[in-house]
């Protein structure tokens, strides 16, 4: 859903709205989860991957809408997450902005609080993690902090739900005008302040209505900081898109003059201080937050915590790398085995209980046998495909991912892997989704949300599609390792790894844009909360469940219709020069490849079934039906070509259909090229 629409809906059905803001990993989503139920709406701005979550809570008969902004260190427009957070509050105009602050690092956390105050929003500070701060010897006088900032400050331990009631109380009191607080003005150094004042005056003269109803002073600071978005708004002398409808009263204001003045003032300050105004202002804000933090906190010396030492071991090369290898193997094994086990259970249950009754029901309801069969493809095979991929693999993965993220260990892995992933144009964080791909591509592609830019997500998703998932592993093992020897199965994996490296390297050079440099906070290791894990997993899983379901069913119905009506042969015949001539496979393999789009392991099952139809039951040993070389090429093509329908559904949802189609076309071509080469080179490899 688009943010604009979601905002409108939430405003309509609630009495007041609050926005949750704050640095990453300060327990903001914990606060959100404590306040809201399971019905969370996720929305995003077109073209941005960062999402905003929204939920509703009731307090004293008041319906309160809660908007969970992405965690950011500041609200400028220098990164996607900051852009989304800022646009979120500007557009939504919440009644209160609750800034969740990490009590153990007050200085940096207050930075964004100052920014919100500057923008003129009513602010409440949730002083979170006070328990952790106490553990490291920090005591914070929250009443003094409240007085200095001129906003209510509520100490919380969101993981345990402490202080949440007080927080919501403060929100209601503030909006009903029960809390009167004097807000001290935030002032900068003399040079900067003079520039701000000069510019503020000019803006007030020129603009009667301010964009987003911001105070002129806030606009002046944005312009001096060189904020591209606001410069654009002022230049056009027009309201930002959403407010376009109410035009300027009277003459269109001339923004050029203001921009000229702002550039002139910026240049002067830059010459005097030897640094851009944006940096100068940031420096002064940090100075201010440092002074405030010093004034309200007392620090007792404490021995370093166990978690601090542990963190050290996770990033120091000699201990960190073995630990990481173990952890990654553990994740892989968990998804492979637990996912595989659950998948078998689902398959078994479905095959022996649900499938027969669905079959019986449909055949008794629908007289037309062909139609009944087609529908059976959709509701039987289709739902099973969705269930046996979705539930076991995706749920398992999301639980693991959530634990890795919330414990802070994901960042340690990212730190150690960054160098290697960098060669492929990715960050260290991309290693988790890519490895997950070996279990199932679907959650892996959804897991690329841990990456920040669209470019990185496209790159990572393309690579993930090339990672042989458990279904493809079944084909490789069944057709190659079992029938022609494990050496050739390993060869397929080597080819895959080589392809992933090559494709990553090539795409990194071809895709426009450059990889952004890594700047990532390394959080202290924390114990993840059960509630947060469950909610996070559910919210992510919900997306897959509802989005992929119709696509998988429609895809299954489509393939089923082609098969049952016999039109499939009409497609297979023109394909035969390619399948038979170029890849050297039997023509029927073409059908397997097409049906394999539904589920990759179907390719092998169908191949056996078709072989039996043609050669009798002895052909269940495929070697009677195909040569080792043909089996090798077949398995190789199956591993590379077009991802399964569930993966395609997710690709389309996450990256847009254009990119999904591109990846599909790319993998088909790649599979044909590699298969064709293998068919011609294979004989020299003893096949």
């Amino acid at each position: 859903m688009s943010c604009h629409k979601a905002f409108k809906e939430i405003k309509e059905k609630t009495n007041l709205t609050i926005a949750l803001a704050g640095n990453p990993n300060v327990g903001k989503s914990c606060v959100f989860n404590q306040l809201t139920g399971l019905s969370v709406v996720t929305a995003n701005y077109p073209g941005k991957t960062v999402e905003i979550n929204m939920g509703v809570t009731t307090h004293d008969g008041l319906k309160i809408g809660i908007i969970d902004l992405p965690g950011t260190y500041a609200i400028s427009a220098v990164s996607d997450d900051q852009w989304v957070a800022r646009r979120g509050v500007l557009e939504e105009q919440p009644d209160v902005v609750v800034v969740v602050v990490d009590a153990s690092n007050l200085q940096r956390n207050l930075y964004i609080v100052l920014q919100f105050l500057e923008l003129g929003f009513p602010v409440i500070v949730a002083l979170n993690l006070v328990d952790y701060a106490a553990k490291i010897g920090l005591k914070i006088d929250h009443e003094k902090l409240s007085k200095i900032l001129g906003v209510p400050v509520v100490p919380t331990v969101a993981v345990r739900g402490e202080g949440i009631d007080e927080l919501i109380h403060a929100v209601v009191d503030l909006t009903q005008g029960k809390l009167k607080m004097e807000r001290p003005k935030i002032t900068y150094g003399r040079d900067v302040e003079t520039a701000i004042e000069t510019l503020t005056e000019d803006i007030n003269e020129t603009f009667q209505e301010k964009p987003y109803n911001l105070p002129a002073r806030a606009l002046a600071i944005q312009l001096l900081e060189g904020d591209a978005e606001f410069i654009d708004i002022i230049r056009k002398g027009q309201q930002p898109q959403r407010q376009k409808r109410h035009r300027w009263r009277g003459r269109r204001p001339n923004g050029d003059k203001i921009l000229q003045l702002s550039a002139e003032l910026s240049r002067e300050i830059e010459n005097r201080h030897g640094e851009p105004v944006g940096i100068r202002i940031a420096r002064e804000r940090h100075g201010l937050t440092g002074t405030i933090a010093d004034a309200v906190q007392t620090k007792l010396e404490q021995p370093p915590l166990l978690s601090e030492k542990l963190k050290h071991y996770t990033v120091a090369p000699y201990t960190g790398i073995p630990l990481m290898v173990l952890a990654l193997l553990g994740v892989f094994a968990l998804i492979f085995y637990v996912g595989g086990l659950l998948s078998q259970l689902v398959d078994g249950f479905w095959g022996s209980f649900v499938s027969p009754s669905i079959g019986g029901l449909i055949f008794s309801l629908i007289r037309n046998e062909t139609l009944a069969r087609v529908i059976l493809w959709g509701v039987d095979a289709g739902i099973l495909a969705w269930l046996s991929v979705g539930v076991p693999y995706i749920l398992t993965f999301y639980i693991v991912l959530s634990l890795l993220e919330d414990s802070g260990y994901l960042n340690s892995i990212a730190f150690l892997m960054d160098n290697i992933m960098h060669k492929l144009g990715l960050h260290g964080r991309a290693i988790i989704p890519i490895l997950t791909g070996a279990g199932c591509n679907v959650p892996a592609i959804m897991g690329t949300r841990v990456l920040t830019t669209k470019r990185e997500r496209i790159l990572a998703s393309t690579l993930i599609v090339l990672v042989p998932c458990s279904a493809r592993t079944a084909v490789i093992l069944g057709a190659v390792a079992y029938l022609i020897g494990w050496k050739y199965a390993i060869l397929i994996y080597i080819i895959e790894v080589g392809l992933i490296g090559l494709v990553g390297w090539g795409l990194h050079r071809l895709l426009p844009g450059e990889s952004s440099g890594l700047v990532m906070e390394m959080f202290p290791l924390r114990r993840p909360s059960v509630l947060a894990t469950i909610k996070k997993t559910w919210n992510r899983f919900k997306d897959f469940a509802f989005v992929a379901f119709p696509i998988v069913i429609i895809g299954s119905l489509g393939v089923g219709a082609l098969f049952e009506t016999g039109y499939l042969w009409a497609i297979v015949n023109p394909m035969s020069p390619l399948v038979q001539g170029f890849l050297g496979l039997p023509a029927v393999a073409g059908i397997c490849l097409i049906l394999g789009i539904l589920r990759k392991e179907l390719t092998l099952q169908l191949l056996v079934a078709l072989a039996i139809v043609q050669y009798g039951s002895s052909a269940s040993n495929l070697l009677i039906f195909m040569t080792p070389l043909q089996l090798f090429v077949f398995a190789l093509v199956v591993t590379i070509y077009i991802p399964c329908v569930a993966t395609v559904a997710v690709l389309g949802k996450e990256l847009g259909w254009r990119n999904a189609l591109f990846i599909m076309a790319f993998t088909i071509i790649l599979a044909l090229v590699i298969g064709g080469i293998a068919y011609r080179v294979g004989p020299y490899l003893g096949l």
Partner: protein
Amino acid sequence: MESTVSSEAEEYLEEIYRQEKKTGFAKTMELARQLKVVPGSVTNTIEGLERRGLVIHEPYRGIKLTEKGRKIALNVLRKHRLAERLLTDILHLNWSEAHDAACKLEHAIAPDIIKPLEKTLGHPKTCPHGNPIPTKGGGIIEEKSELLTDLKPGEGGIIVKITEERRDMLQYLASLGLMPGTSIEIEEKAPFNGPIMVKARGASYALGHDVASVIWVKKP
């Protein structure tokens, strides 16, 4: 050797020196902005300076001074900073006004005036803003700094400059408090030119190698 270039060229060389010190290269657009001229005329002037062997223009990277150009630039800078001293110490102008006035005055200071001027001002070492005044021979005491990537775990220092050109990245680092003047300590280095983990302002950050290699620090 004294400069034999026009005052316009002097202005250019001085500004190129400033930008080069800040970001490693001077850029056409930035020169146009600072010197208040159109980019087209910057390109022309730079071509002229390049023909005279005063600057090198590397395509897609920027403009750098040659040894000859650097000498002239430092000489202009010396006159600029002495002029600033003159304006603030003797004529009692504001610091803020001194810079722009000195930009005009510097070109009018003939070589034979420098010596008596220096003497009258009491041989100042720095300009009113605290920047060092180059000596007669073109020597300048620049702060000695090292790349963050050259430090070992456990070592640290104060950030003196960040030679990053993308404004967004600079602003992002600044929002975390990673800016000149901040003290920073290396906690861990990933092997094979991997990222570097640093501690600054009470928090730990992993910085990719490419980010860390534009941060210059001065060891205590």
